[in-house]
């Protein structure tokens, strides 16, 4: 019994070939954001990446106009890429180790907005301060 031989996949050495399809996926998501206001989030840790490939993806996305640093449970970096609406979000723990890496296609990542619960807690603190004076 013979089996059809699989065609060889043409990829450069040391690569999974995932960077290019991912850029296409981001392109589709960006069009969805533009036309239908639909947001997308991609978990980069769920994809196999060869050494150096993630860096190539980050390089391809480039740097945009906004960089935000969040300090909560360790640092987080939230950078808009050179493609407006495409954000690269990297979460670190207190030891500066990466615990999550996401690409969000949105106008502004939710994490940047002040959260209702934090505003309420902050207001209480402010009132306490004013009361003490």
């Amino acid at each position, binding site marked *: 019994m013979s089996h059809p031989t699989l065609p060889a996949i043409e*990829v450069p*050495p*040391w690569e*999974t070939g995932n960077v290019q399809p991912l850029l296409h996926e981001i392109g589709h998501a960006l069009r969805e954001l533009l036309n239908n206001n639909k947001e997308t989030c991609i*978990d980069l*840790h769920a994809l196999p990446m060869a050494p150096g490939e993630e860096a190539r993806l980050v390089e391809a996305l480039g740097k945009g106009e906004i960089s935000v640093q969040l300090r*909560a449970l360790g640092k*987080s970096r939230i950078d808009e890429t050179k493609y407006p609406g495409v954000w690269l979000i990297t979460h670190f723990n*207190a030891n500066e180790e990466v615990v999550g890496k*996401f690409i969000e296609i949105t106008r502004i990542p939710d994490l940047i907005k002040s959260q209702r619960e934090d505003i309420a807690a902050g207001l209480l603190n402010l009132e306490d301060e004013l009361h003490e004076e």
Partner: protein
Amino acid sequence: MKNDPSLLEVLRQQGVSRRGFLKFCAATASLMALPPGMAPVIAKALEQAHRPSVIWLSFQECTGCTESLTRSHAPTIEGLIFDAISLDYHHTLQAASGSAAEEARMAAMKANKGEYLLVVDGSIPTADPGYSTIAGISNLEMLREVAADAAAIIAVGTCAAFGGLPHAKPNPTGAVAVSDIITDKPIINVSGCPPIPVVITGVLAHFLTFGTLPKLDHLGRPLAFYGNNIHDRCYRRPFYERGQFAESFDDEGAKKGWCLYKLGCKGPVTYNACATTKWNNGTSFPIESGHGCLGCSEPNFWDLGGFYNALSEPSVNTGNAAAFGLVAGAAVGAASGIMARKEKDNTSHAHQKVTVNDLKRGESQ
């Protein structure tokens, strides 16, 4: 238990803001291999989640699983999940010892009857109870006693999940897995020698979030982490496709990072998350360091004919291991235990038969 603070309150007490909590949920979704869109669902569930009581029993083991879990330095995400449970008994970590420790276990069992989680690492000796005891109580007796009122059991590490190293030929202690003894409780096997830390905490997070156990494969392992084999997710896979293999650890192919299949890599028959989750806080995994996968999350991985023999090479007869498994199964008198063992032996049998052609056949179907 019901008056315990929720996970959200525990995090608040540690000075974690809402933003921090949302970040925690995003990282938790990622570590549970859930779509990122699930983060708000996790946030909502964790706001109400209460700390489950956990009793951790260590039997015939090397403490590597506990090491794997506690290696991370607080406050990591997995550290926070670990903090979020009420670990009521763990004889390596707890301060109490002797009868005080056993009393703590009994008190936790009574207070949380039917609701506590039982975590087991290590296999259970059945040949002679004297091989492994805690406070004079045999492993078998303690397992049965604690399992009776547990909501669910998490068998951490290949020893608890499949018998592990103690079960290796000639298995002098008659070591068996948790599932060979306990057959009337949900058991989740988190195999690996040791398991990836975030896989252990991922299962705990799933229980905290949804109050249920995640979907399991045919060997009782959570599909989110054991759904893909190492080979399918390996970045060296393209070399395999092109037939470019390292023939020795120092040849040109090895230097170019070619596929390690011929050097005994068990990636094609090993189901685990190493290739994507990676080790040492996401640094790398064995194949990235130039060594083939040992297959440590699979049953009987040490008896599969040598770590450096290619999968297609004939390996030693594992008939004896199967016989020991059956004898051990008969000793505990659990028919389903024997069935479980049979399935595992079938799996190990299947391991020997896999060839390059078989793999290609599987793909072309």
